[in-house]
């Protein structure tokens, strides 16, 4: 099985769950920005949850399926089609060889994930197939997809079964719902309707920010700036000043860390962030909400709300419990007995 890239899309990369364990060498952990969407796509395609899949950004690619395969699309709504017929997301899909899987622009969210049975079989670098474009490793030659790339796929449970009969594709009536922990993040009422809420715990330098800055950070809205990428989500909004402008020595940082360059606006570090940084940290997006951050597009509005460390821990454990239930449910379902349309 392989996929041929007809159009690469805006920024499509191979991603798995990243390469932890190399930060001491300055190598980012990387991996899918929305790890929950990646894991669910893999579950639906009968892969291990951490198999390599494609991460699509804002505008998706066009891909030709060279063999019959089981696949799944999760994450941002990106109007997927197979030979121009709309197909559903968050479901396993049997697709016939020769079909063209195409995407439009993200109608909501920022990043979609395409898992195919067997996973994308790119050569691993430092234990991961995740593309790190800055280090030039992982994925396809350490870069985003290009027209003409052939993406080899491994052999998975759904890869060997030929979808010999027609129609072109089929999907079951059920779908996988993302964990409820991720649904709390969209405010639908009042003046903040359409605003994404990210839950945070305070950073080490929170107390060094001026009272007005702390209030603004927790109350005002911030807008995702166009310069955002997999290294960091840059925000436009009220500048945040510290009362103490002492320089910090470089120290370890992780995805979710919200650092504030001098008197400036916050940057939320993301999957490909540097391993060390020197700016004051006002807060950290909780681990369970990193998939929410991944779906923020330039122009989107954000607010922050504080939770305790205990709450952050409980939300993460709840999310994992839901993922376990979902994994079991998908395993028990049969992708081979599908209601045809």
């Amino acid at each position: 099985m392989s996929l041929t890239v007809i159009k690469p899309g805006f920024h499509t990369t191979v991603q798995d769950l990243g390469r932890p364990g190399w930060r001491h060498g300055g190598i980012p952990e990387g991996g899918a920005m929305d790890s929950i969407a990646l894991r669910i796509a893999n579950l639906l395609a009968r892969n291990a949850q951490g198999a390599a899949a494609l991460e699509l950004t804002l505008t998706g690619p066009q891909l030709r399926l060279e063999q019959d395969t089981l696949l799944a699309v999760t994450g941002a709504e990106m109007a997927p089609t197979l030979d121009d017929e709309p197909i559903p997301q968050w479901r396993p899909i049997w697709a016939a060889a020769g079909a063209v899987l195409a995407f439009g622009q993200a109608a909501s969210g920022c990043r979609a994930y395409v898992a195919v049975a067997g996973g994308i079989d790119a050569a691993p670098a430092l234990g991961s197939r995740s593309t790190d474009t800055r280090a030039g490793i992982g994925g396809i030659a350490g870069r985003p997809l290009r027209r003409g790339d052939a993406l080899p796929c491994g052999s998975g449970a759904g890869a060997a079964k030929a979808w010999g009969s027609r129609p072109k594709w089929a999907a079951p009536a059920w779908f996988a719902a993302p964990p409820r922990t991720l649904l709390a993040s969209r405010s639908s009422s009042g003046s903040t309707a359409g605003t994404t809420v990210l839950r945070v715990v305070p950073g080490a330098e929170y107390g060094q920010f001026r009272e007005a800055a702390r209030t603004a950070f927790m109350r005002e809205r911030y807008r995702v700036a166009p310069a955002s990428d997999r290294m960091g989500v840059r925000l436009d909004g009220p500048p945040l000043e510290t009362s103490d402008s002492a320089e910090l020595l470089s120290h370890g940082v992780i995805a979710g860390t919200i650092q504030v360059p001098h008197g400036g606006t916050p940057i939320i570090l993301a999957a490909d962030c540097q391993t060390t940084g020197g700016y004051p940290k006002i807060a950290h997006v909780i681990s369970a909400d990193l998939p929410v951050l991944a779906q923020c597009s330039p122009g989107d509005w954000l607010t922050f709300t504080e939770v305790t460390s205990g709450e952050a821990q409980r939300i993460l454990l709840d999310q994992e419990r839901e993922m376990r239930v979902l994994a079991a449910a998908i395993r028990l379902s049969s992708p081979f007995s599908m209601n045809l349309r």
Partner: protein
Amino acid sequence: MNFVKSADGWAFSIAPLGDRALVVQLPPQGENQPAWQVSAELAKLLRAAKRSWIIDVVPAYTTVTVVYDPLLLYQTASAGVLLFEVAAAEVRAILQQLHEHQHRHQINQQEQLPKYAGVLHQEPRVIEIPVCYGSSYGPDLPQCAERAGMSEAAFIRRHAEAEYRVAMIGFMPGFPYLTGLPPELSQPRRSSPRSIVPAGAVGIAGGQTGVYPLATPGGWQLIGRTPLALFDPKRAEPILLRAGDHVRFVPINETETNLGEWQ
């Protein structure tokens, strides 16, 4: 904050970094050695302890950051306990071993230390980095020598004679923050950064000297270039340098190396 203070004033604190990492903050000046040396030793010890839930240990100037897997840690914790507290308690216990190790000759506790504490007996490594100084490899060398008020040859000699140590790795894969640049070789950053600096470029910015592991835009004054890869994902040890290593720059000329590798 969790402070541990011993009778001789040796102290550190442990604070959370978000909800899946913690930071060990060391006093800026250790008892007999700078904080970054303590940090490098502690990082070595934490890695050698091989806890399954420890994902990454990142030593820096006065801190060691430990990134952990909350889900793995949860399996070993009792219900209702804050995972940060569990991780902090383990890290504190390991750090205490470093302290005891440093005083073992007085208290004769060596045999009570866990086996992995043996990493502390390893001599620091000495890594030699061959450098082609000047010409097209170090286009800023003439101006640097002029600013320092010495000849190019003297500038090269001073840079290559000095003893450097890796205080930390960060910023990009394999990038060493080196201590030990002779003060008279300090240089201002370039007023306009180069849009691309090649991998292996050896430069100076302020009181720091360093080597770019990857091609990247940069504002350092470039004085030379090494054919040695500081980051090579295909090598068994992808990252050449580690915090704590000694580094020496060895001048070479163009004919001594395969320049083809640089292109």
